[in-house]
């Protein structure tokens, strides 16, 4: 559900088996991940990067829309946000 991918019944069957095997295998990380060990999110220690709050190089509207599946000239166009039951 979180992945936002519609799946066919066949795909669900196949993925369930594969993901079970993968999850069984990767669950072994918890064997060595004891509470005393710190987590590393990033391979090289880095600090947040700041810059002056000035307008930099940005895309034009035309550039931003050039790859859009649908647009009205100034904005992206999408289908209904809410369904009827909502």
């Amino acid at each position, binding site marked *: 559900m*979180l992945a936002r991918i519609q799946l066919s019944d066949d795909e669900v069957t196949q993925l369930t088996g594969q993901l079970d095997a993968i999850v069984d295998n*990767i669950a072994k990380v918890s064997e*060595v991940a004891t509470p005393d060990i710190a987590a590393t999110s990033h391979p090289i220690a*880095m600090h947040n990067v700041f810059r002056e709050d000035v307008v930099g190089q940005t895309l034009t509207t035309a550039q931003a829309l050039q790859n859009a599946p649908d647009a009205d000239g100034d904005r992206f166009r999408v289908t209904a946000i809410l*369904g009827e039951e909502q």
Partner: protein
Amino acid sequence: MSEIIRWTAAELGAKLAAGEVSSVEATQAHLDRIAAVDGDVHAFLHVNEHALDAAAEIDRRRAAGEQLGELAGVPLAIKDVLVTTDQPSTSGSRILEGYRSPFDATVVARSRAAGLVGIGKTNMDEFAMGSSTEHSAYGPTHNPWDLDRIPGGSGGGSAAAVAAFEAPLALGSDTGGSIRQPAHVTGTVGIKPTYGGVSRYGAIALASSLDQVGPVSRTVLDAGLLHDVIGGHDPKDSTSLPEAWPSFAAAAREGATGQVLQGLKVGVIKELPDSGFQSGVASSFHAALKLMEAQGAEIVEISAPHFEYGVAAYYLILPAEASSNLAKFDSVRFGLRVTPDGGGTVEDVMSLTREVGFGPEVKRRIILGTYALSAGYYDAYYGSAQKVRTLIQQDFDAAFAQVDVIATPSAPTTAFKLGEKIGDPLQMYLNDLTTIPANLAGVPGISVPSGLAEEDGLPVGIQFLAPAREDARLYRVGAALETLLVDAWGGPLLDRAPILGGNR
């Protein structure tokens, strides 16, 4: 076949500078080669129709007396994960078919500024997820050594392009081995720089804490020349390291003298015994170490007890980050949009678009990633994987207190047959056993050809790893071993690759 395509990038650059050949001639020779062999190899997803114009412009600037860099006028293949303004960029996915970036990736812009001629975009596993290019939405690349075998992945297209003499140089990206493992199976050279050493701006992100862009080539010196062009700080990438780097080409040239091997301490990992490798891979590895030992290197056994957890940690961290990075393919701003019959909400359109636009491996990893990050599982999976990352870094720290570099075979086996592992994702994942720890720890790694496996005659690579920021050490050591091996072989390993296309 034109002799131009056999030259290294360094040789071609020197002949261009001396006026012995023009960039138009060199570019045309490579375009002819692509036309002759790429029907069989399928290294390219797109061939740049503007390449000759770019080459002519370099020739014009040179004729006007402009001082150009060492690689000006040399053709360059570009992995399709890197966005380009003059060519489409798909990252091997159907969901980005026909996408045209409004900006160039920094490495592409820097290559362009240095006068390199972008000759085409290379094939890859979709969004760089895979070890064989079989997960490309546009069909697999074939290994120039045996067209029935995989060229490695995800950057199989870039490696096959340089191995098949379709380009002297290529750009790659390495998240868990995607530069080094293809180098191993194609008899070429590939480097994953230190994390942050090369800008990731404009590299379509797979796993942001692991991805690194790097050079793909036939020689260590050529890789160094390209690394010098693309490397260094980029304000557009907030993970880019600010410090200045030494010249990697200079390091390769220094390494070729062989003096670096005198007294060099080379660590060999106790927990990676020969039994984990195909016998020809293990014997090629040991033969290379013997050669280094004969030149004064000292082989030291080291322990890296947590490397065996690397693959597991990687397949939690990567899918978690990828599921987040790939959320941008939502059918709204760019890429494919597929609307259900009779319409539907944005959410329905998004789900159907992603069902149609993503291949099976991408779906597997996104679902795995959202699962690993979900409430209730986060600590057990993602949190534990991050701790394994700490343990692997500590293993590296302890090892590098004893040795200058670590050596491993670059991958467990030589190139396997197309189709052989596609149905078993777990087996496919184990291909990256020796390359993944470097990505988890951010340290640099190089794969250099070490020979052919005796049982199947296919290429084998040796991987060297160095501490973070010590990329130059890898160029010195890699070039030293390369020089010894090429002397022993009487010529480059690729001289022994089979003839392609009938006109070589």
